[in-house]
């Protein structure tokens, strides 16, 4: 079997439980909350309706005759239920969120205000386009900013998230090569790449081959150049890379790939490190997706929604998907299937219904206009400074595998080298939870053992950084001393470690009423 270096403990160690000595099981402001299905209100509802006029049904006999099984709660109960749930979440609003590669920067509330302006929120995607010129104008304006910030030629705004944007970029590459009569089968991906890269390449119909990293944490440029050939369609590079380092050979790599007839896809997840001061277009790339929910502050919302516009070089522009916004004099046109034929016959098609994540466009636009060119340059400067500060302040206590190869970019990478007593990165992370922080990204990138990737972002003050450094230092010291109490961490969180093995062996994905569950057994 193929060995995967992931495998890490997922079942909680049997240990001392933290027993609650209250009647309710609550602990002051830490409140336990049952499922809505356990609140037994199947006839309840928190919405009032006007009476329906009497009409003859035109349902064709399809009227429902079974109960659905969805309870309703009054407004007070609903508000309380979700408020209590919210208090069991860590969030950026609460503290530093050091997730490497996720860019957990502050989510400005102006974004929320703008997104909710009725002129943006209460318009339908299929309204005649001259009734939505402001919306189309905003999409166009955002697209122009993204083009200028990246130094590229055009932009596809419709992809719904980063992975969707990667797919968009690869499909454009595939369409371009097919149009040239030169369909190729292989895509090269560095072994340090994020898992979406090979997954997307496979989804786009390519065979994936891995390029090793060198001992300085960068792509092995010689190995990459050696592998290039008439069967290589593209190279997918993340720059800055997943080790938090800039790829200094990027221009050389792009030139070599182009010379061999291939194209360069750049994963823009780490754009925050260089926004406003380096343009990926100057590095020779052909396509790059941008995560609006990372670099441009649209909220992560507990896992989404994201938005992944893709910028294209001149070579790939004809193959971009539909629909897109085009400025025609004073007017903004929406180029869809019908008008594509005149302008854009080689586009590879449509990736989604409607036009894209308008709600995220308005938020990102508010962010970009707020910062401007000077502010965005400061964003990358402060992001990189903050990460280097963390790297240098902690490298005496945590192993930094590439600490000697120069400054890092916007994230600092550590390993579990030096941990004693069988303690792992996971144990350190759970210990950090008790200190009041969400852990950093763990076990990624795969090229470093027990990897810990810390990205503070530019919206952290020096005080916040110092507090975080102190907390991480404290837990790291415990790990290096082999402090076994870390195995029981976290002890103060709303839940202790959860049994993920049980969840995967016997998946319970929906609620089953106790009588129903018993009957099923």
């Amino acid at each position: 079997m193929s060995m995967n270096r992931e495998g890490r403990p997922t079942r909680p160690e049997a240990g001392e439980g933290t027993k609650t000595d209250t009647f309710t099981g609550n602990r002051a402001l830490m409140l336990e909350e049952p499922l809505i299905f356990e609140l037994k209100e199947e006839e309840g509802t928190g919405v009032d309706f006007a009476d329906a006029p009497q009409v003859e049904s035109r349902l064709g006999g399809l009227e429902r005759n079974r109960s659905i099984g969805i309870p309703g709660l009054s407004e007070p109960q609903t508000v309380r239920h979700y408020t209590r749930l919210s208090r069991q979440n860590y969030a950026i609003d609460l503290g530093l969120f050091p997730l490497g590669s996720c860019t957990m920067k502050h989510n400005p509330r102006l974004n929320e205000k703008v997104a909710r302006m009725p002129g943006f929120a209460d318009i339908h995607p299929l309204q005649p386009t001259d009734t939505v010129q402001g919306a189309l104008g905003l999409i166009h304006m955002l697209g122009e900013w993204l083009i200028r910030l990246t130094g590229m030629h055009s932009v596809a705004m419709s992809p719904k998230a980063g992975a969707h944007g990667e797919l968009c970029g690869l499909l454009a590459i595939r369409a371009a090569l097919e149009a040239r009569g030169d369909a190729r089968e292989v895509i090269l991906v560095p072994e340090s790449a994020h898992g979406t890269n090979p997954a997307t390449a496979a989804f786009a119909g390519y065979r994936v081959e891995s390029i090793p990293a060198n001992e300085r944490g960068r792509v092995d440029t010689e190995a990459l150049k050696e592998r290039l050939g008439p069967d290589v369609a593209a190279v997918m590079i993340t720059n800055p890379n997943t080790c938090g380092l800039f790829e200094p050979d990027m221009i050389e790599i792009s030139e070599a790939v182009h010379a061999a007839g291939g194209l360069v896809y750049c994963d823009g997840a780490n754009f925050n490190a260089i926004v406003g001061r380096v343009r990926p277009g100057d590095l020779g790339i052909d396509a790059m997706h941008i995560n609006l929910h990372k670099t441009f502050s649209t909220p992560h919302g507990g896992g989404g929604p994201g938005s992944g516009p893709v910028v294209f070089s001149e070579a790939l522009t004809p193959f971009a998907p539909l629909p897109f916004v085009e400025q025609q004099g004073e007017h903004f046109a929406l180029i869809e299937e019908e008008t594509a034929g005149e302008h854009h016959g080689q586009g590879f098609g449509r990736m989604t219904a409607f036009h894209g994540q308008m709600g995220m466009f308005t938020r990102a636009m508010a962010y970009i206009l707020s910062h401007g060119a000077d502010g965005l340059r400061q964003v990358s400067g402060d992001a990189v400074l903050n990460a280097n500060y963390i790297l240098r302040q902690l490298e005496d206590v945590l192993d930094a595998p590439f600490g000697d190869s120069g400054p890092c970019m916007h994230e600092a990478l550590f390993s579990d080298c030096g941990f004693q007593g069988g303690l792992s990165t996971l144990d350190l992370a759970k210990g950090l939870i008790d200190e009041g922080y969400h852990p950093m990204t763990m076990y990624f990138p795969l090229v470093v053992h027990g990897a810990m990737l810390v990205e503070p972002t530019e919206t952290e003050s020096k005080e916040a950084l110092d507090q975080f450094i102190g907390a991480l230092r404290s837990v790291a010291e415990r790990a290096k001393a082999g402090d076994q109490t870390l195995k029981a961490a976290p002890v103060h969180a709303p839940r202790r470690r959860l049994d993920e093995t049980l969840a995967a062996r016997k998946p319970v994905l929906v609620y089953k009423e106790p009588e129903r569950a018993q009957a099923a057994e």
Partner: protein
Amino acid sequence: MSLYFTKEHEWIRVEGDTAIVGITDFAQAQLGDVVFVEVPEAGRQVTKGAEAAVVESVKAASDVYAPVSGEVVEGNQALVDAPDLVNTDAEGEGWFFRLRLSNASELDGLMDADAYRAFCDSQ
């Protein structure tokens, strides 16, 4: 009855022209708690070195390769309800599938128990 091992951490126990295949104890320890196993159905043709089964732990999913070519006689249905057998008895009850060999000479390149132990030590 002969027991061989592959560099991909599969074991194969051969008896005449049929054999049983599983993953080694070393492999299951690396994987962690196994939560799901997909075994091939009877009648399926497998090729040496190609994917024959899938084993999933909570955080890792791995392909299990056929050590030799042949036709699957039986997949171990016990693993459907009790995937943890792979952890508790990888080289016994946790077997994956039984097959009829199509080319016994393919066994020549495989390791014996001592060679496999040495191979694991070098990992």
